């Protein structure tokens, strides 16, 4: 288990429920990202101004592009999903780019990606039922004919698995290849795989995760 996240410290035994659990690199890096995003959010609403500064420009651009993306791929009636999608995008982007700062990306851990994709999975079914009504929603599974019911159910259950494994596999593959490159030539050469695996694949996988969440949720609602 060379590439499993390192355990930094263990929670003492006397803590109820969590006693004895190891706190891994994934969790500590996630704490760093939480602090970073909280401070960024807190600070960027403090400096709001009529004439936007550089930070406000970037934040406004991000918010607007998320809203445009949501409106164009989910439909204008589902603009309420924009904050969730923006949060998802910010967290996954920060997590994927953590590899640039010599941290292990939290998304290279199946626990993180599974948690994220289960949020999407639950929203798919919750909002599907809310929009269509529970009985109508479950009748959809038996269409076009009842024989196809098991296939539809397996298809629905595979959604969170494929979502989470896509992100996890991409990031873990990046981590392993980076490790091998660092073992091979630890000078100058690792810049190239950093650009590809952290910057390019990180941004692309963020976009894909958010986009697929949007598509799945809006498919279940329409």
């Amino acid at each position, binding site marked *: 288990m060379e590439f499993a996240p390192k355990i930094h410290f263990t929670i003492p035994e006397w803590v109820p429920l969590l006693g004895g659990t190891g706190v891994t690199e994934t969790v500590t890096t996630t704490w760093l990202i939480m602090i970073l995003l909280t401070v960024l959010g807190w600070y960027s609403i403090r400096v709001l101004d009529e004439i936007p500064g550089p930070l406000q420009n970037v934040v406004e651009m991000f918010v607007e592009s998320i809203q445009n993306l949501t409106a164009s791929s989910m439909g204008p009636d589902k603009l309420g999903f924009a904050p969730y999608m923006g949060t998802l995008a910010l967290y996954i982007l920060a997590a994927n780019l953590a590899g640039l700062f010599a941290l292990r990306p939290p998304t290279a851990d199946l626990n993180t990606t599974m948690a994220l994709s289960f949020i999407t999975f639950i929203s798919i079914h919750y909002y599907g039922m809310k929009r269509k009504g529970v009985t109508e929603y479950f009748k959809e599974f038996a269409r076009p004919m009842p024989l196809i019911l098991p296939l539809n159910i397996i298809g629905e259950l595979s959604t969170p698995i494929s979502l989470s494994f896509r992100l996890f596999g*991409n990031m873990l593959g990046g981590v392993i290849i980076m490790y091998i490159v660092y073992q091979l030539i630890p000078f100058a050469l690792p810049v190239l795989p950093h650009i590809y695996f952290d910057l390019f694949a990180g941004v*692309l*996988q963020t*976009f*894909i995760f958010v986009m697929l969440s949007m598509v799945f949720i809006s498919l279940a609602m329409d």
Partner: protein
Amino acid sequence: MQEGNEIIKALFDWISGYDKKTLVLAASAIGAGLAMIAGIGPGIGQGYAAGKGAEAVGRQPEAQGDIIGTMLLGAAVAETTGIYGLIVALILLFANPLVRLLM
């Protein structure tokens, strides 16, 4: 027929000279390599998507943004099977469930 049996017997003797864990680890390494053959599929699929995307941009350059978004989405879905192969290979290499069966 007799010769064939002797060859098989010699091979069997040679293999049983190693302990069980070594054999399972060797077979897992070969299996991990074989699992990565799954990478062929996404390679072809993504190349096809990229080719069609380039064609579409050539025909309609003003719709480039939409085409790239759709293409990336399709490429990501095509990638899934390759990622499954990668996960199987990683499990065989780093979290091997077969070695534990020997204990």
